[in-house]
């Protein structure tokens, strides 16, 4: 088995290296991917269309908004699947754990966490809201926000973190994020445009169509942030307790 795998991989490697010889050399501005009209259009027109300086955010939330919406749905469904896979099954689990965690929360660690968790959460909100002009956005801010709850669970106990953010509320918040995202898309659909065509939101808000796209992107990122926050914490809570939601790491 291993020998067969090795030979197979050697063959694939030779093929791929042979193909890699024909790639454009590294950093070539005239390579097909870089000189394609789509990428050039994004670079040239993002500022005029949406007034967002960060092109990645603009392409992510506006031009390719449909893609991002269903990526968010994928994250949501994955979290839901992890929860429901681990929840059921035989009630008597005889397998013992390898690790025995046997001490109470440490004073120094809990006090430090008490100090830095608000900072982390404010930073996560900053990353989410400032993603238009600097690196960042819904995914990064959401993951940082979820990490703050994971930090609470690691330093105290899973019960403490679940008291703040119960697992049912996790999925409510995650679904709420998708509803926000799809709701903004549907709103622009009802206002006469197409789905996720934010420029038509200018008909009900007192801004120009470009600024309407700018602010709708912020709303969309907030939806993504909700979903990712909740799902990251739900992933951790499910996996660390084997679905029992107690006796966690």
């Amino acid at each position, binding site marked *: 088995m291993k020998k067969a795998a090795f030979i197979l991989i050697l063959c694939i490697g030779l093929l791929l290296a042979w193909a890699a010889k024909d790639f454009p050399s590294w950093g070539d501005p005239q390579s097909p991917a870089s000189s394609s009209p789509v990428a050039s259009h994004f670079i040239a027109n993002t500022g005029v269309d949406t007034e967002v300086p960060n092109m990645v955010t603009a392409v992510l939330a506006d031009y390719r908004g449909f893609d991002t919406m269903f990526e968010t749905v994928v994250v949501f469904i994955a979290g839901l699947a992890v929860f429901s896979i681990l929840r059921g099954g035989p009630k008597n689990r005889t397998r013992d754990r390898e690790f025995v965690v046997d001490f109470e929360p440490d004073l120094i660690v809990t006090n430090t966490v008490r100090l830095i968790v608000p900072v982390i959460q404010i930073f996560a909100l900053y990353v989410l809201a400032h993603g238009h002009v600097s*690196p960042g956005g819904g995914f990064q801010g959401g*993951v940082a926000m979820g990490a703050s709850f994971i930090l609470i669970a690691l330093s105290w106990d899973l019960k403490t973190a679940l008291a703040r953010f119960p697992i049912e509320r996790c999925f409510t918040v995650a679904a709420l994020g998708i509803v926000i995202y799809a709701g903004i898309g549907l709103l622009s659909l009802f206002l006469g445009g197409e789905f996720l065509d934010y420029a038509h939101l200018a008909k009900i808000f007192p801004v120009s169509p470009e600024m309407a796209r700018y602010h709708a992107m912020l709303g969309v990122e907030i939806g993504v942030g909700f979903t990712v926050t909740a799902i*990251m914490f739900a992933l951790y809570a499910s996996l660390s307790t084997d679905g029992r939601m107690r006796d966690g790491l």
Partner: protein
Amino acid sequence: MGLELFNTLILCLLVVVAVLSLWVRDLVVSAVVFAIYSFLMCLLWAEMGAVDVAFTEATVGAGVSTVVLIATVFNLKRKAKD
């Protein structure tokens, strides 16, 4: 030239770390080495100009996925056979 040297160094280190994370028998060590791998990837992308991807990798790859891996190994056997 300086950046190219940096690039080359990180790329060579990436292969070493990837092999190491599969070589180690202890799964916790494997997860931690995988976090190092993710962090090197994050450096590489920051150097290539993909700042958003670097940020995402720093939060997701080096942060959450390590925690998730260790939380899973916590419920499994720690030693792997190979």
